[in-house]
């Protein structure tokens, strides 16, 4: 599910691009999967269709999707390697955000490390990897 938050300080079209990237990484949209039409997504998200068009153009420029004449937008195949690289970049970005929060809360690197270790250990011992809703 792509979501936009009009109260977030991030341009709506950027939120849509990030949303699709995450969905593609999670495998919700596989290679050559057809994206919703601009019209349908605009109505669903209650977003100006021009903004959706801008997000799709941006994704095409980044090579994430391609257009087929008269048929709409599709997820670009991309290699496993590229996908892993994207995943790594995304995880790194998220860790960066966490790090900034930890620093602002005056957490030491050791404390952060042990928190991460706890979580990693919890996952292996726990009932199952937690499921994202």
């Amino acid at each position, binding site marked *: 599910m792509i979501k*936009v938050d*009009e*109260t*977030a*300080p*991030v*341009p*709506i*079209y*950027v939120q849509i691009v990030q949303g699709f990237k995450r969905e593609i990484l999670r495998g919700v949209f596989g290679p050559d999967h057809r994206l919703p039409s*601009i*019209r349908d997504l*605009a*109505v669903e*998200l*209650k*977003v*100006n*269709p*021009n*903004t959706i068009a*801008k997000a799709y153009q941006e994704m095409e420029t980044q090579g994430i999707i391609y257009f087929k004449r008269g048929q709409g937008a599709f997820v670009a195949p991309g290699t496993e390697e590229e996908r892993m690289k994207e995943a790594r970049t995304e995880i790194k970005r998220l860790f960066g955000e966490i790090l*900034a929060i930890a620093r*602002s809360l005056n957490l030491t690197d050791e404390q952060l490390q042990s928190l991460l270790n706890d979580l990693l250990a919890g996952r292996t011992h726990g009932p199952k990897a937690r499921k994202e809703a």
Partner: protein
Amino acid sequence: MDNTIAFTGLTKSFGRLPVLRQVGTTIGSGQVVGLFGRNGAGKTTLMRILYGMIGPDAGQASLLGLDPQAHPVEVRQRVGLVSEECHLYPWMDANALETFLAPLYPKWDRELFRRHLASMEVPPDRRVDALSRGTKRKLMLSLALAAQPEVLLLDEPLGGLDAVVREQIVTTLIHSLTDHGVTIFLSTHEIEQFAKVCDRVIILSHGGFLVDRETAALTDQVRRVTATLEHPVEAVPAHPQILSARAHGTQVEFVLNGFTQETADAILANWKVREVAVSGLTLPEIFIAFTAGKEEVS
């Protein structure tokens, strides 16, 4: 570039009170532009000039290439207006209003009118004076859209309405954009609801345009810089790009218009800085940063 709506140098005073001072811009076909301003900023006056209800003291306006003062009939046939003011005959119901209005509009679409009434839950056979404020507004929008306008002027379209009605109106507007490619110029002081809808934002203050920029660019270019300093300070020094600032002991915070790292660094060079964080602002926060402390006359 096509100029579906264009105006330059528009100036208007009421008595000795200046309401608009030399405002101008152009809006292309299919764009959605939001005119944000505090009460008394001059939003309604601008909308009334564009619709041809009043003439400007100076300057030119054109809609679809037509001067609204010189071609009032054609402008009204091709431009729809929805405002907070309800100008419908109170004793008529939606059916009667359609019978009365349809002949005046060459492109009137009965089927479309019925569809909008149904989707927004407007009863077709109840008198206008028995309708709630929200239902009246939805009826006005249905009437405006039934004429298949190329341009919609919306003056506070959501003002005083509940959340459900707001949602219904925004959804209807999105459908008009996707299905009919209408151009929308809307005024509001409720920014959040339109943050997802506007391509471009104009901020009107004291009769002038403070901002006229693409929504995404505005969100990108206005940033809040928060810094923790080694030593407490009294105030943030003035800078042409600082929209608002405050200092509280060793904490300083300022909002930069046209943010670049270099500008932020130059300002921070005033102090010995321990820690810096840069964050974005929401559209309502941006609006406040630009207009706070600028009381409007009314």
